[in-house]
């Protein structure tokens, strides 16, 4: 196993620059997830680490080697692709053994390794089968097996779960996380699904437009998003963002002014972020630091809690209510949150205050 260090990494396609000089260090044994919308450069960055894309500037180190000009096979990495890329004309066992293509091991030792990996991944009974006889989850496990069998310096995952249904995705998330704990492997994982990022990562790298917006642990990003994009991207359901004015050091939003305790003086227009879980439907006469009144548009019961979409002016705001006795659709409702739950962003730059 080895760490990965990226310095000032640049990628261009013709005149278009898609990765703008990013820096990142992945520690040995760390599980790092790149997350961001399509086209943000996360897959391109992963493919540059793998050596499948040339780099146009900067440096990539795997362990203590600069690998800028090395072929993928010489980088000692293993990669799992979105489409699994397991070879349909080979059996499961042959597919896994293909990971040892360049290995100097003899046949018996290779067979033993394949069987060991098969056991770890629960594929031991399927080694003779063809991929066409496997389910989606099993195919993905074969792809992971082919990566594992080599004991690579690092694993690279390119959206490996996006073709699976929701239930299987949750199961495979768990399996990959356990695999990481068991192998202690360095993993760089790309996804557009923030749930995958939150549940699996040691650290999340949020990317947008070829730049890194923020790097941090899942809870750090959840609690302290650096900007509106990260705030809305991390966490489910999406954080509410409400425009507000500032006057005399207090927020002019809702029923009464909310005093701001910010290190720097606030700009006149700001954005207030509040997660739906923190914005509760208030009972009769109940008070909160920030209180808003509106009309219930949609009620979504989820079992343990109920989400309520509330129309406030022309904006739809998502709040939570107790599972029992949720408000009626069309009725007037008051919602509120503690000041500690509010995040503040500059309306002009969208950066956190």
């Amino acid at each position: 196993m080895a760490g990965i260090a990226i310095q000032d990494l640049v990628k261009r396609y013709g005149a278009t620059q898609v990765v703008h000089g990013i820096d990142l260090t992945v520690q040995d044994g760390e599980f790092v997830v790149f997350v961001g919308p399509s086209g943000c450069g996360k897959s391109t960055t992963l493919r540059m680490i793998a050596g499948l894309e040339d780099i146009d500037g900067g440096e990539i180190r795997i362990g203590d080697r600069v690998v800028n000009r090395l072929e993928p096979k010489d980088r000692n990495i293993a990669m799992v692709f979105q489409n699994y890329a397991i070879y349909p004309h080979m059996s499961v066992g042959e597919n896994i053994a293909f990971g040892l293509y360049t290995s100097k091991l003899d046949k018996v030792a290779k067979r033993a390794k394949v069987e060991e990996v098969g056991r770890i991944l629960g594929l031991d009974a399927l080694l003779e089968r063809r991929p066409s006889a496997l389910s989606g989850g099993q195919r993905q496990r074969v792809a992971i097996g082919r990566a594992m069998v080599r004991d690579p310096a690092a694993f690279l995952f390119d959206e490996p779960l996006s073709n699976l249904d929701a239930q299987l995705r949750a199961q495979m998330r768990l399996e990959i996380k356990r695999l990481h704990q068991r192998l202690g492997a360095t993993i760089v994982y790309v996804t557009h699904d923030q749930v995958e990022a939150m549940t699996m990562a040691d650290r999340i790298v949020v990317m947008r437009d070829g730049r890194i917006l923020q790097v941090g642990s899942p809870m750090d990003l959840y609690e302290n998003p650096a900007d509106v994009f990260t705030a809305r991207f991390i966490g489910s359901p999406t954080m509410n963002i409400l425009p507000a004015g500032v006057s005399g050091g207090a927020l002019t939003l809702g029923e009464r002014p909310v005093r701001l305790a910010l290190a720097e003086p606030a700009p006149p227009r700001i954005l207030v972020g509040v997660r739906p879980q923190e914005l509760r439907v208030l009972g009769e006469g109940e008070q909160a630091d920030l209180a808003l009144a509106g009309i219930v548009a949609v009620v979504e019961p989820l079992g343990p809690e109920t989400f309520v979409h509330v129309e406030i002016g022309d904006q739809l705001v998502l709040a939570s209510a107790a599972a029992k006795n949720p408000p009626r659709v069309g009725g007037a409702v008051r919602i509120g949150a503690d000041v500690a739950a509010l995040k503040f962003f500059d309306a002009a730059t969208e950066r956190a205050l």
Partner: protein
Amino acid sequence: MSAAAVGPRAGFGRAVAWVLLLAGGLAMILPLVFMFSTSLKDASEVYDLRLLPAHPTLDNYVTVLSDGRFLRWFANSMGVAVVVTLSNVFFDSLVGYTLAKFEFRGRYIVFLAILSTLMIPTEMLVIPWYVMARNFGWLDTYWGIMFPGMMTAFGTFLMKQFFETVPNDFLEAARVDGLNEFAIFWRIALPLVTPALSALAIFTFLSNWTAFIWPLIVTTSKELYTLPVGLSSFAVEQQIQWELIMTGAALATLPTLLVFLVLQRYIVRGVVLAGLKG
């Protein structure tokens, strides 16, 4: 057919379709039937255009098969068709793969140049081929018969189109696994396009098995004749012995049938890339 398409009008349409199909089928199959039937007639009966021979006999087959020339021509045709087919399967797919999966300067121009040769008919190429064969000393040799067909624009085009359907993930996974570029082509990409390879093999084999003009022009020694050229010489030398020509032709269809029976399941099966998302 959907449930809505019943009733008198649909019935009439179906009848017309059946009649047309039947007519087309008969038009194609009757000459074959007649060929087999004639091969079972004796010389006196040949011009009696009955479908079933009055006195069926296998004498013609004995005559043809015991004639050393026929077996020689059969072997020549087989050798030429097999070598040319293997060459096409290998080189057409190699070039098709390169055009489909590698970015390089001039790729599009190379592809257009290859495609443009599809528009030139064999008859126009025969003279340049002949001049080339004469200059290189290839006249009246096996290589002379084979060289124009060792690679074809059609095969290259067909393989390129099929390789474009092979997802890059397969090739990149192999690249990460440590295969060199030729091994990626040979061990990963090629097995994924077996239906196309089978189609190409069948087309190439058939067109070379039945090739007539070029082998006729380039060969002068009878030992180098291919089967179609040899059979036609039956008609020229003596009076036309139709029963022997038909027997030879009937025997000549056997490899064709065999090739199709062996390879058709690969074609019919279609492209199934089971390694991808289900």
